[in-house]
């Protein structure tokens, strides 16, 4: 890591934001782990969202997600299954997509606040896992569920049913993201910010 200390948001921060945006998109290009007939996108991209927060920290992590949203709105096929375009936002999953931004932020904030300082291997893993779960799951759903309810006119309860579909997958992804972030922090630490 370079020791030249620069302006608060350096070129490198900008590059990291763009690269993690690319990682999130690339994870969506993988053959999706589709669960039978569930019609909604169960996507590895949320793994990327958690990683962006956990590795880069709150500001840059949220920046990477905001960039994904921007590319989506610009009509680029960046979401899983090669989807994109303005129509995603008013669609039923639009809220989840927007929720990625505060989701990554909260993940990053929690990691920065707690996980970085965690001592032992298990504590560190657990702290990362908790951060990914709170940010990448709870916060994302907190935006996504009401949004689904609003755009579809369904009650909150029924919209939450959709979230329940995702929860198992997203918990697994939080575990993977936590392990990855923990190992990356040990091998190639960058300061979360």
């Amino acid at each position, binding site marked *: 890591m370079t020791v030249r200390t620069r302006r608060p948001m350096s070129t490198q921060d900008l590059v990291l934001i763009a690269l993690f945006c690319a990682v999130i998109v690339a994870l969506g290009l993988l053959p999706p782990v589709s669960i039978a007939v569930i019609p909604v996108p169960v996507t590895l991209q949320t793994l990327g969202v958690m990683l962006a927060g956990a590795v880069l920290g709150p500001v840059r992590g949220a920046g990477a997600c905001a960039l994904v949203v921007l590319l989506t709105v610009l009509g680029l096929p960046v979401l899983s299954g090669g989807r994109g375009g303005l129509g995603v936002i008013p669609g039923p999953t639009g809220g989840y997509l927007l929720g990625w931004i505060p989701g990554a932020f909260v993940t990053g904030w929690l990691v920065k606040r707690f996980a970085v300082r965690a001592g032992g291997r298990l504590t560190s893993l657990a702290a990362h896992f908790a951060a990914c779960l709170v940010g990448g799951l709870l916060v994302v759903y907190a935006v996504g569920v009401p949004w689904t309810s609003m755009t579809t006119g369904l009650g909150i309860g029924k919209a939450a049913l959709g979230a329940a579909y995702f929860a198992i997958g997203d918990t697994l992804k939080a575990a993977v993201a936590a392990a990855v972030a923990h*190992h990356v922090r*040990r*091998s*190639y630490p960058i300061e979360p910010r």
Partner: protein
Amino acid sequence: MRIALDGVSVRFGPRTVLDAVSVELTERRIGVIGANGSGKSTFARLLNGLVLPSAGTVLVGADDTATDARRIRRRVGFVFQNPDNQIVLPLVEEDLAFGLRNTGVPRKEIPGRVREQLADLGIAALAGRPSHALSGGEKQLVALAAVLVMRPETVVFDEPTTLLDLRNRNRLRAVIAALPQQAVVLTHDLGLLDGFDRVLVLDAGRIAYDGPPRTAVPWYVAHHS
């Protein structure tokens, strides 16, 4: 080991990258050279089923890569140009152990095999070092160790020396020379092929020349500069 390609073509979309290649590899030291884009990496990936032929068959021993890819991957190890692609865990010994654990080697045997492998390559001292902070040459050797610890019968190297200085290149050359296994080496570094048994020159997806390095290297240099 005997690796046999019979009428193998590889097409990516409309593009023919390898064109009806038939060749039998039995020698211990085999070099593959050719221009950028001539098909070397594709050829190498055929040998352990990372790429499957669009036509023809690839036999490794008695196994067909199209149907027995899993077994073949354990018999044909692959060292890539960029060691960063291979290294997963933060410490060198953890990383070697990671591969063994994932293929179900009994836990108790693992530390012994890791130590032994590192010693074999003369890098026992790296065991406890952080794998991502090693120099290019050291990383290249660790990536090789991570492949060899799985005990493949053949090792394929795709441009293993591009990032190395003179000393590390010589070291890698010595390590390759000393390998008990069969080795297939793809390279632009023609000096690496001294003492090899056989060199294939690829050109636009075909074997344009096939012979000992003494004649194959000058042939390539004459045709490609």
